[in-house]
């Protein structure tokens, strides 16, 4: 009996271990404590982080991933955050990720090894303070690693199995990040597949190959390795992910002739063929044929496309929650593009489809023939005047040329379709279509003093112009759609614009106006402020009324690592005024001007007849800056910050007290 049990246990151990990558398992078994040099600002160092992607059978729909990591702990903070291992698991509609096996141990600084018994593994949700390295949606398996102290190294190896419902899904290229906010001595990706499968990789930000160590002879797959990857932290006006090394990889069957990988095939045959969403949904419940009757009746190219845009917007306007789900889904955009292509062909209208990547997410890689490197698709056509007019997909309430700032002036892949439906392709640039700014105006009136309280009325107005309006246009248009709930919804929108110190439930006289390229909203609320007889002065700070105070965290003032982008930063105007029966104590420090090659910051005031009017303007002239120019950007920010955080002192007039 004991023999049987022992045999069973050995078999079980063997079968579990068999799922873990052999090379990784061997390395894990033979590893030892390593002496390494640490960075002073790091809490842990990742000695290595190796991912092994394996397709063991014939199906590309079953992918085994083994992760093998070794991490050295340098600080208490590091100990608290890294003495546990989190393994992602999920079960989605079309694919699931299952836990297969795991081993963990502690390599003590005295060179002893302490194994962790993985019986204590629990399924839970990821704690809020889990390191970025482990951030995933859904549930995780958690294992506390035994006997870890500062100076020790933890090492673990685990395998998960991802199963896709259909082989089709694995045409999708996956992205592997090589950098994050931890110093990493080695990060490697190993892809191992059977011979009937093809693997392609597209590395980004691998620094001209100088630190790249790629072994392309690794069986039927690839080994890509980077060394000494410096940590990257979020900074103001930065997109750290744009500079982190990452790669796309793609595994697909050589037997599936339908899957091609040239831009020509992409354009000519509209491949890949994905599971399309219902075509009727795209044109608001109508088939292409039915919609054509109405479109044929519409005069002129521009009006026809305007009509198409209205048709495709209607379903997501009617069901706004759907918009939240699909707005970043390139597959849905692709389905829309195909229906529009068919419609344009039937109308004998030429059309272009521009496959674009947001400035926030990266740049076009021309050698990567994959739909999945794009964020969305923008359409364009020539109107009767010969001007090129653009329109977005999946943007409810949008009009022609409503192209978000993040897509303007970006390089794109373009499919041009002539009036006969014949398609050609090339690379193109989305032009600058809209500029704009955001303006907030606050007018404070001191109405009366009742006993020990000053009573103010605050009039605020917000003006969203050009691309700043485009950012909120779907949401606001949805809010004002239903006259029964418009007041409730706009009040909740306005509440978020009022800074915390003035949170109030007394918003009244709310009015708004929506024009083609401009949205304004104004409202009033009341604020009280206590005073005592000790002092005739009271003070007000603009900071109490403007949500963005241009505060620069102390630790970001002197050091700048990343290149900067003003991608979502709008030129800003703040107008702040005050009137009441009291005198302002002038402060000449509040007049300031800073101009440099990156823009200008101006703060000024006038004061006449107990009426104070001030203005703050920030104009940013460039879209990006090098880290060495940070001090100039900081000068602009600080000029605005000094004004917004100043106190304006007022002396109450004797008349008022009486």
């Amino acid at each position: 009996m004991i023999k049987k049990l022992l045999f069973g246990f050995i078999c079980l151990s063997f079968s579990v271990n068999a799922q873990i990558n052999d090379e990784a398992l061997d390395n894990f078994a033979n590893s030892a404590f390593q002496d390494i040099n640490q960075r002073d600002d790091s809490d842990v160092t990742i000695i290595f982080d190796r991912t092994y992607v394996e397709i063991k059978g014939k199906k590309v729909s079953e992918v085994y991933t083994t992760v093998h990591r070794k991490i050295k702990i340098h600080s208490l903070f590091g100990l608290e955050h890294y003495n546990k291992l989190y393994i992602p698991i999920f079960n989605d509609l079309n694919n699931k990720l299952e836990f297969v096996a795991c081993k963990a141990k502690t390599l003590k600084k005295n060179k002893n090894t302490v194994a962790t018994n993985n019986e204590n593994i629990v399924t839970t949700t990821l704690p809020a303070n889990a390191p970025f390295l482990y951030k995933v949606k859904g549930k995780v398996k958690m294992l506390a690693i035994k006997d870890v102290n500062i100076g020790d190294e933890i090492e673990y190896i685990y395998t998960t199995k991802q199963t896709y419902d259909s082989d089709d899904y694995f045409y999708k290229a996956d992205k592997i990040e090589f950098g994050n906010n931890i110093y990493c001595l080695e990060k490697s990706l190993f892809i191992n597949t059977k011979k009937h499968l093809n693997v392609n990789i597209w590395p980004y930000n691998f620094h001209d190959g100088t630190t790249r160590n790629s072994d392309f002879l690794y069986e039927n797959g690839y080994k890509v390795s980077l060394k000494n990857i410096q940590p990257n932290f979020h900074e103001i006006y930065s997109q750290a992910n744009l500079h982190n090394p990452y790669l796309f990889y793609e595994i697909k069957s050589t037997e599936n002739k339908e899957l091609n990988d040239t831009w020509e095939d992409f354009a000519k045959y509209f491949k890949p063929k994905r599971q399309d969403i219902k075509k009727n949904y795209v044109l608001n419940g109508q088939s292409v044929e039915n919609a054509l009757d109405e479109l044929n009746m519409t005069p002129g190219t521009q009006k026809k496309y305007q009509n198409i845009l209205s048709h495709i917007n209607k379903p997501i306007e009617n069901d706004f929650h759907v918009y939240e789900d699909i707005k970043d889904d390139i597959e849905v955009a692709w389905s829309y593009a195909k229906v529009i292509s068919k419609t344009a062909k039937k109308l004998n209208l030429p059309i272009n489809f521009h496959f674009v990547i947001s400035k926030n997410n990266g740049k076009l890689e021309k050698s990567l023939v994959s739909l999945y490197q794009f964020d969305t698709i923008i359409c364009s056509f020539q109107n009767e005047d010969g001007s090129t007019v653009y329109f977005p997909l999946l943007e409810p309430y949008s009009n022609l040329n409503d192209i978000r700032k993040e897509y303007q002036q970006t390089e794109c892949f373009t499919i041009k379709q002539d009036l006969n439906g014949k398609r050609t392709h090339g690379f193109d640039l989305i032009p600058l279509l809209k500029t704009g700014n955001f303006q907030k105006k606050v007018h404070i009136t001191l109405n009366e003093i009742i006993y020990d309280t000053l009573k103010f009325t605050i009039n605020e107005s917000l003006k969203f112009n050009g691309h700043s309006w485009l950012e909120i246009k779907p949401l606001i248009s949805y809010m004002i759609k239903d006259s029964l709930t418009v007041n409730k919804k706009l009040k909740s929108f306005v509440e978020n614009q009022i800074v915390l110190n003035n949170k109030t439930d007394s918003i009244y006289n709310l009015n708004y106006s929506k024009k083609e390229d401009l949205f304004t909203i104004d409202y009033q609320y009341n604020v009280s402020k206590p005073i005592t007889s000790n002092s005739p002065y009271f003070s007000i700070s603009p900071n109490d009324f403007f949500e963005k105070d241009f505060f620069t965290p102390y630790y970001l003032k002197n050091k700048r690592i990343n290149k900067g982008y003003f991608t979502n930063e709008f030129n800003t105007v703040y107008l702040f005024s005050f009137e009441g029966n009291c005198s302002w104590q002038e402060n000449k420090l509040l007049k300031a001007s800073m101009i440099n090659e990156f823009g200008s910051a101006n703060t000024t005031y006038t004061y006449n007849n107990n009426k104070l009017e001030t203005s703050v303007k920030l104009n940013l002239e460039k879209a990006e800056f090098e880290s060495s120019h940070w001090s100039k950007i900081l000068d602009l920010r600080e000029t605005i910050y000094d004004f917004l955080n100043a106190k304006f002192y007022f002396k109450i007039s004797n008349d008022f007290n009486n």
Partner: protein
Amino acid sequence: MPSNFFKIITILLFTLFSCKLIGQIDVKIYEEKFGKGLTSLKNKINIEFIYNETSKQYFAKVSHKYEKLHLGHESSNSLIQVPFNDFQKLSLEKARFYKLDSIGNKKLIENVKVKYADVKDYYINNIFYSDLKVKQFNCSVDLPENYLINYAYHVKYHDLKFLTSFYFQNLNEAVEEVEISIKKNPNVKFSIFEFNLNGITKTEDESYIRFKGTNLKRFKALNTSVNSNYYLPHIILSVAEIKTKKSTTQILKTTDDLYAWYKTLIDELKPDNEILKKLAESILESETSDPKKIEKLFKWVQNNIQYVAFENGIAGFKPAEAHEVASLKYGDCKGMANLLVNLLKTQGFDARHTWIGTRANNYNYSIPSLAVDNHMICALNFKNQRYFLDATSKSATWDKTPAHLEGKQALVSNNDTFTIQTVAKSDPKSNTFTITGKIDLSKPIPKINLKLKLTGHFYRDFLSSVTYASNKTKEHIPYYFLSDYLNGIKVNTISSIETSNETVTFNLSGTFNHVALGNQKVIFPFLDVLVYPRISKQNPPNYIDYPQIIDSKIEVYNAGRFPKENYNSKIIDNENFSAFYFTEKMNGKFIVKQKISFNALNSSLIENDSWNTFFDQINSFNNLPLTYD
């Protein structure tokens, strides 16, 4: 015949009309009376004790019925969550959402299928509690600005120890009518402890004890507010004993029963003393000094065991085994306390398991209820003195009790008996923040240079922030630690950070912005160092972190010139809070002095006026000018 017919019709119409009027809800009246937000029109909680013939035991059935009116845009979130734990069996009965038409009639929007309500993990302030779940439901359609919800559920408690507190209102909720009734049962003896029952009436007859409240105003908590049990009306129901045909069982008649149950849980533990002794020896190495031994063992648990609230079922009350916590490297407060007790015992120290309610909890051990304590620590009798060791606190040292336990009663195990001891409140003089320095007005932009000194809890809080911070942010901790006290100061550098003798000092330099530099120079030199806010009628009292003194002495320099004003001994003084502010010329210098002292752990629980007067006066000092022509 026609006459009778008309009479009947008239009565019928009148009845129908009256019913309709009664059913109507005048939104304006509620808005004027309670303001916007959530108002409960009618809340009913009924508690009854039922004999279960199968188990031959009594259980409690608590029925909840709510009718809640949501007014205004704040009510966009229609999610209703009903929390429960492993000792409760929760059954949702019904939930209906209604809108109100223009004349206040209810129109059904959705009759929720409550049997499909989700069960989710419960999060409080984003902290996950494994032993708490919620059943939740939502309205599947967009709700209008004003809507009404009716829902009902019942909870069964098969172990009557776990019957604890019942609230008449919740935070951010006004209540028009509320009733909590307890159906008497001759075989179940219980006690009721009442808290904050202003405006709640109590009646009692042969069958029921009833508490009724009307028109309870809404409380809105601030970040600095005390916990809701300090001010919301509620009762704690504690079952003393139950009689059955065969026997009488004592449940929680006195605190003796509470301790007796806690002791059974401790007695079930079987610490592996061999492992623990080896661990203690490896931590202590060759240490011989007793205080150093205690310090090392305490620090080891504090630094190596991560606090994780994995408390499921009985594990919410019974500590995990000490050797298991030492191995896993994580545990809850009970696990950490138990480990510390056992490690200290291996070295011959007199360490005891100790239960305590933190300052989040406004109860004491005169109440025999599980609601009284929410934390476990280790008490240590050492050299004729008792120390309270809390390894979950990052700022505590073994001989300094953390601030969140000050003034609270501790239930200290003495094997078969127990003692109750109150943890001492610290002296304000032991927790000081001292500011000295100079503001130089002679420069175009006023400069400020300060020396800052922290002692006591200020010092320990700072030290723990630095110790447990990421290496990347460590050097910026001083700025963020001080920033609440630096209103008006734009900091350029913080330097010369030194710690010695339970004191930390810094030098700070920057610019001072509380000025008006027009044709004359005006400076507002009194620093804005009061970090606790003014409290409105709706706000609960402030929680003061610990007794403390903030003392500032700053020289204002303006090229040898002196201001017009001089302020003498402006004093605010009462037994809990005091402040004095004055200026003086001393050795040709113009000195601005201010001192704020807190001797209480919270602002008054009864009224807010005394705190607000204190706050307003201090704030008005911040607006006292010094004018230079």
